[in-house]
């Protein structure tokens, strides 16, 4: 079957992702006139995701979720702490670390800004394969075709440009691009929140299928508790750079302990008029 082809002969099926004592501060404000303040965006974050499972990361904007995602994908460097893929540190691991870093890929929230508008879809998906020399040049096209098909894109879409696609189709392109380099961990940074309601479900189901097929490990950043409960085996709630609560999604939703988690559960708009919540104001 073409579906599994890009992974044929690869033993790697999901990796263990461990994050230990991760810290990152940013300077805020210019130093020209005032002393710059240091904001702890991520403050001593530790978690582990078992191979092939999904952890949800929930929190308000500014809580540090995306900073964690960016550090795991090596887009920014942590101040301190370790990020381990199958035990190998990808931050300080040198050349071996770099090799392992390919194993973590990211799907961004907005597929409009994360795909180069001047590149054809086929080239976008194949870029990583080329860069990492994962197969001979002559075979790239076949791999891209197979992978695009697996993500629900037809062959003729490969010769078109991103703007010719709907939001949902663009997110499929972004997913295919991330998968092209044979990662074992996928960081999904709000992958459906920019999409229409009816399309969100399509993408979530696709991600589930891909996880089952390739044994991928997911870190899912989301704000919708219902999505998290449905798709994650574990969930961590972040606030002000720290993980304030972690556990099984069901426990968190039914018995939230942290005040912030409680307000999150209370604010969740339940799509059932019989379960209308009292006004908070």
């Amino acid at each position, binding site marked *: 079957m073409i579906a599994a082809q890009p992974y044929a002969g690869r033993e790697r099926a999901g990796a263990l992702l461990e994050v230990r004592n991760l810290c990152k501060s940013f300077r805020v404000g210019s130093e020209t006139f005032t002393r710059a303040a240091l904001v702890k965006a991520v403050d001593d974050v530790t978690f582990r995701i078992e191979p092939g499972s999904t952890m949800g990361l929930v929190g308000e904007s500014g809580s540090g979720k995306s900073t964690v995602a960016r550090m795991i994908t090596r887009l920014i460097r942590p101040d301190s702490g370790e990020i381990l893929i199958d035990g190998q540190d990808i931050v300080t691991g040198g050349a071996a670390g770099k090799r392992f870093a390919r194993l973590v890929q990211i799907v961004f929230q907005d597929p409009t800004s994360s795909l180069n508008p001047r590149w054809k879809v086929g080239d976008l998906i194949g870029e990583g394969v080329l860069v990492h020399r994962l197969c001979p040049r002559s075979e790239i096209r076949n791999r891209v075709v197979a992978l695009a098909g697996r993500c629900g894109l037809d062959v003729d879409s490969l010769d078109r440009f991103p703007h010719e696609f709907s939001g949902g*189709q663009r997110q499929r392109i972004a997913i295919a691009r991330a998968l092209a380099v044979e990662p074992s961990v996928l960081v999904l940074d709000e992958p459906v929140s920019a999409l*229409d309601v009816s399309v969100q479900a399509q993408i979530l189901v696709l991600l589930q299928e891909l996880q089952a097929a390739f044994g991928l490990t997911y870190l899912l950043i989301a704000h919708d508790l219902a999505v998290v409960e449905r798709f994650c085996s574990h969930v961590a709630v972040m606030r002000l750079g720290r993980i304030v609560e972690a556990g099984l999604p069901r426990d968190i939703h039914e018995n939230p302990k942290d005040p912030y988690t409680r307000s999150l559960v209370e604010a969740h708009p339940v799509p059932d008029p019989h379960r209308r919540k009292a006004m908070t104001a």
Partner: protein
Amino acid sequence: MLALDGTQRSDPAGTETQRPGLTPQHAGAPLIEVSDLSVRFGAVTAVSSVSFSVAKGEVFGVVGESGAGKSATARAIIGLLPPTAKIAGSVRYKGEELVGASKARLRQARGAQIGYVFQDALTALDPVRTIGAQLVEVLNVHGHVSRRDGLERAADLLAELKINDPVRTLKAYPHQLSGGMRQRAVIAAALIANPELIIADEVTSALDVTVQRKVLDLLLGVCAARGAGVILITHDLGVVAQTSDRVAVLYGGIVAEEADVFSLFDNPRHPYSGALLNSMPRLGDQGVFEPIPGSAIQVFGDLRACPFADRCARVADDCRAGVPAPFKEGGTTYRCLHPLEDTA
């Protein structure tokens, strides 16, 4: 009663015929009555013959995906569409026709009779003027108030919207406020001239979930206290379930289904409504979860078939023969030839 300003809607296309049934009875008449409203942008048809009405004190939810015609409908009501938009049909505010009304009349209606809360607070507010100046400006458009009186009213309203230090907020510039505070300032601008109808266009979509809930409750609380009608536009079925009395589900520019909120969620009749409900995961419920295949439609030219036909599981040949006429059953009106079973 409002005086008609005398300008009658010109109807060059002749698409609207006089319907005797629609003469408003003013006692208990709806606040706003939209009938057969269509909006076109060049070849794109954003809205095709949308009809609904909203009464005083009612929260009317309008749900749909992007391109379903939600915002185009809302903006057509209040004359905020660009001149390139072709509008047909009728929008009556307390019996007064607003489609084709003069610019001056619409400008007067906006704010004083119909308040519009914009989605993006950062673009809705002027970055170089204080919140106070922008709120007093609304009052000055609708009659002269002194700066002092204006600021006093603005401060009272901000306090009603649970802003802790209204006086300081009035002196602040938009960038100095948090997202939730800014959205409250935009709500205040829409409410300050005491309109009887509020149109809230995706007001909380850009906010965090916890802030979202609070801002929504504040907006609806103030509207309820004043007995104002609300048209709440959103893509979020959860928000609708939590807040609305009646709901219109828009798809491809038509009202696929209109019902009271309980009927819609318990007993959806249009296949699109049903599919939409099944395509969202629910907290504490591992039941049905089924995506709708395909993607949202964009309509070019006249709509000649059911817009949902290509994605519908119940599609038949007659669905493509024409747009199904609205069919009323109980409290529900739907436009479908092969509706879901009535489970009520």
